[in-house]
């Protein structure tokens, strides 16, 4: 069954692009249901930082080779002190996306054992993909301040 029939609340962005806004408790169930109904390809898990609202938006994206339809399941969680359950049992590659989002945004995924250093190494500051991390200022205060090697 197509996503629109399964979930009437889904909105169609354009042909072949469906967006479902939901809450975080329902995500596991929706993804499971979609997986059983022909949406077999998990495309990506993405995170958007809506700093004015104080929310992170997690977007789970799936694709059906059968119906040629792309579904974005979007939830919002609080920027601080919130977490999400891991879905690594449903699709193995979700694990990698969770590792990246944990490192780049600081979202905690409960139940994922491989969270931790993935791309960066020894990063001591705030997760860099957050909107309040100012990369230009950081660069000016670090890399441009490292002194040149002086020759006597």
């Amino acid at each position, binding site marked *: 069954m197509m996503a629109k029939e399964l979930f009437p609340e889904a909105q169609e962005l354009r042909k072949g692009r469906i967006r479902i806004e939901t809450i975080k408790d329902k995500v596991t169930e929706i993804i499971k249901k979609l997986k059983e109904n022909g949406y077999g390809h998990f495309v990506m898990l993405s995170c958007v930082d809506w700093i004015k609202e104080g929310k992170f938006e997690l977007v789970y994206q799936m694709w059906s080779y059968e119906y040629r339809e792309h579904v974005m399941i979007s939830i919002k969680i609080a920027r601080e002190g919130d977490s999400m359950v891991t879905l690594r049992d449903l699709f193995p590659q979700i694990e990698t996306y969770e590792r990246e989002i944990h490192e780049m945004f600081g979202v905690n995924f409960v139940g994922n054992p491989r969270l931790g250093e993935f*791309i*960066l*190494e*020894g*990063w*001591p*500051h705030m997760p*860099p993909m957050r909107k309040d*991390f100012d*990369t*230009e200022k*950081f*660069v000016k*205060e*670090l*890399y*441009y*301040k*490292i*002194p*040149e*090697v*002086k*020759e006597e």
Partner: protein
Amino acid sequence: MTLNHDDWGKVARMMSKRSLWMVHFCTGCGAMEMPPVMTSRYDMERFGMHAMATPRQADVFLVTGYLAVKTLKRVVQVYEQMRDPKYVIGFGSCTINGGMYWDSYNTIKDLSKYIPVDVYIAGCMPRPEAIIDSFLKLMDMIDKGEAIGWKKYHKYYDQYKKNQRMAYAYRLDEVEDIKEDDAK
């Protein structure tokens, strides 16, 4: 057989400039132009250069492009594993001033702060002709005894190490313990 300015040293320099072996380490996107340089069209083996699998056997290190801090650690390790005399070519604008990534939080901006660089190639990305030209320039420098980056590294080792540690820790205040990393 050190590289002195005597006759024997002259012969040694003449030999070593005709037999520069390169580290096979693609540090950045500049590595994309290395295959054309190695193959039929540009063929750097004409000058006795070819890529070696391990740093211990190599003489010249092409830092191909931008360096993420994580790669910098491996680059320094590879550089230290190479046997003297050794030469570094900074490849592309990213090694000179950061290039496209001037405001990226994870790439170093000026390679010569961390390891001594003998020759720079400008451009993003440099054409194979430019790469060949840099090799010839390096050969010329070796012949004249000007490629002394490795001596500088020994002499100002403390300064280089200090800068490297700052970059590794992403902090200006120096951090002593460096984590054992997994580069070969």
